[in-house]
């Protein structure tokens, strides 16, 4: 999607026309197929989509961590404050990772080192990036623990001594230790219970404001988006089908897939006898449909949808959609 209208100054992250394929001997998985993302300084973008939409691959590209050699970056740029991450040397990347850009992974159970104390794991990044002594790093690590709501005296304990919610707090402390400009959170609360999820989301929101960080929040949960994001991109089969502010997407959604996503959710307050599922299945990324990737599942598909990929249509300064229904006019044809 072409996000040219956004002011290029003051953007923490710009991804331009990113295409990533996973190539194996007998097939090519087209994971990301021309994604454009812009995150302004201090803002949070929600990347929303279902399994296999290409969310995590996109996120990994920001740290140049797309699995090598099967992951191939076919084209595109990932610019962090104007510098292309994809062409950086190993030492430049080392400086970047964990310092300017940090990532919180989905599963706190597997993203911590089981044989290091949590204090050491938080201090590690500080020692490397801030070039301070181990003692000083540990002192700062303890401050980070307090910040995420864990008593400093637990710094000497190992991950197995913490519950799931506490482990995710440790992961957040590691990510924030070097006060990054950009935080990538890949389904940070999916593995947690709802009451713990509520605690962690509030923590993330508080810290984001405190450090004035930009954030990329990857999630499948529109409830979480409503809570922490400023803007939303809806991803499907490696394309962004709709992008806008929270108001654009929640009050004024345009793309049939976005409407389908909202329609398929059970509403907590209105009991309906039937849910409205989106018909069919996610497309096979080794054999994507021609034209618009959503057309085989779309209730409004027209002849043109299977032939031509739709172009980006701007409906306002903040809201754009990739759909043939919106070719000539700003008004909905639905």
């Amino acid at each position: 999607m072409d996000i040219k209208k956004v002011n290029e100054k003051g953007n923490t992250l710009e991804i331009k026309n990113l295409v990533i394929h996973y190539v194996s001997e007998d097939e090519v998985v087209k994971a990301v197929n021309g994604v454009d993302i812009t995150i302004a300084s201090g803002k949070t973008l929600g990347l929303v989509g279902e399994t296999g939409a290409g969310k995590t691959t996109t996120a990994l590209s920001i740290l140049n961590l797309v699995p090598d050699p099967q992951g191939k970056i076919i084209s595109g740029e990932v610019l962090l404050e104007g510098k292309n991450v994809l062409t950086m040397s190993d030492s430049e990347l080392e400086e970047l990772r964990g310092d300017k850009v940090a990532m919180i992974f989905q599963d706190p159970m597997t993203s911590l080192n089981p044989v290091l104390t949590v204090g050491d794991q938080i201090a590690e990044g500080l020692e490397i990036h801030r070039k301070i002594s181990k003692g000083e790093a540990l002192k700062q690590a303890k401050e980070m623990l307090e910040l995420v709501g864990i008593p400093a005296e637990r710094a000497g304990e190992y991950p197995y001594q913490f519950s799931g919610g506490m482990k995710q707090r440790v992961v957040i402390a590691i990510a924030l230790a070097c006060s990054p400009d950009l935080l990538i959170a890949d389904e940070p609360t999916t593995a947690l219970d709802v009451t713990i999820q509520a605690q962690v989301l509030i923590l993330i929101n508080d810290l984001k404001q405190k450090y004035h960080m930009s954030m990329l929040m990857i999630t499948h949960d529109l409830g979480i988006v409503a809570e922490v994001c400023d803007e939303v991109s809806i991803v499907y089969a490696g394309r962004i089908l709709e992008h806008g502010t929270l108001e654009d997407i929640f009050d004024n959604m345009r793309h049939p897939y976005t409407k389908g996503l909202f329609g398929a959710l059970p509403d907590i307050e209105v009991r309906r006898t039937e849910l409205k599922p989106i018909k069919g299945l996610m497309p096979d990324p080794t054999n994507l449909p021609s034209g618009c990737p959503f057309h085989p599942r779309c209730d409004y598909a027209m002849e043109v949808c299977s032939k031509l990929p739709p172009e980006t249509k701007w409906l306002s300064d903040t809201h754009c959609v990739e759909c043939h229904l919106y070719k000539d006019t700003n008004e909905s044809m639905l």
Partner: protein
Amino acid sequence: MSNTLLEVKDLKKYYKVPKGMLHAVDGVTFSIDKGKTLGIVGESGCGKTTAGRAILRLVEPTSGQIIFDGVDILKLNKNEMRHIRKDMQLIFQDPFSSLNPRKTIAQTIEEPIILAKMIPDKNKRFMRVMELMETVGLAERLVNTYPHELDGGRRQRIGIARALAMNPKFIICDEPVSALDVSIQAQILNLMKKIQREMGLTYIFITHDLSVVNHFSDDIAVMYLGRLIEKAPSEILFANPVHPYTKALLSAIPVPRIHNRPQRILLRGEITSPINPEPVCRFANRCNYAEPICSKEEPVLIEIEPNHFVACHLKGINANA
């Protein structure tokens, strides 16, 4: 004749662990009418899955009574139990690990029919498999495919077909849609509702997802650390939750809208250990309304209005914040 299909009385399941006794399920009592759905909700470790398995005697309950269709099943021997299990089936959470990777769809669905010696004739059995596949919306051409060739939604359909193969009266669904994407989740939930209507099935629906359970269940039971703390018809539970934990749980659901967002009740701390619990309210240490009595006595489940049961010393009277 009563309309009750299943009655569970004071069901307990304890596990012996090095530090003492782990009270996974600790005195759970409820009943379900024929054709209805009871949702059991709670967070990890509250005992909801263990309760489901104990009802099917897949784990042997420590004590209690389970009366299914008029029969006290804890008194049955292995053979009698095997017979009655045809009527009680289970759908598992994870369609990726609950299917045998070396069996085709047809073999997987056929297996329970062979084991129960229900249809000895091979051709008739195959017809039955095709019929089941149609019921759950699996295309005929998939009959010889293996689980790894299929997506999560289709795999879960196999799990459902397999549970239906015995013509059961009762199915325990343990987080049947948690591993699925929302667009597929809605397909499976609609399918399960349709089957329930057509076959007059009774469900226990175990889940941590409150929006799904509200959509699906007639009654909802909330569990916390092995105890049933509140039970009510779905509309009542959502409109008028009484237990402070139920209130917090409902308010913690992220709502997919940006206006009129509900006020959130934040809980302190995390779930405590289920090993050797003290005979006090197990939620007291996280409760925003706890009074001295809460850490002295264990509250019992009482009926505060018709069909609405709560186990809380405050009974919501002081907790209407």
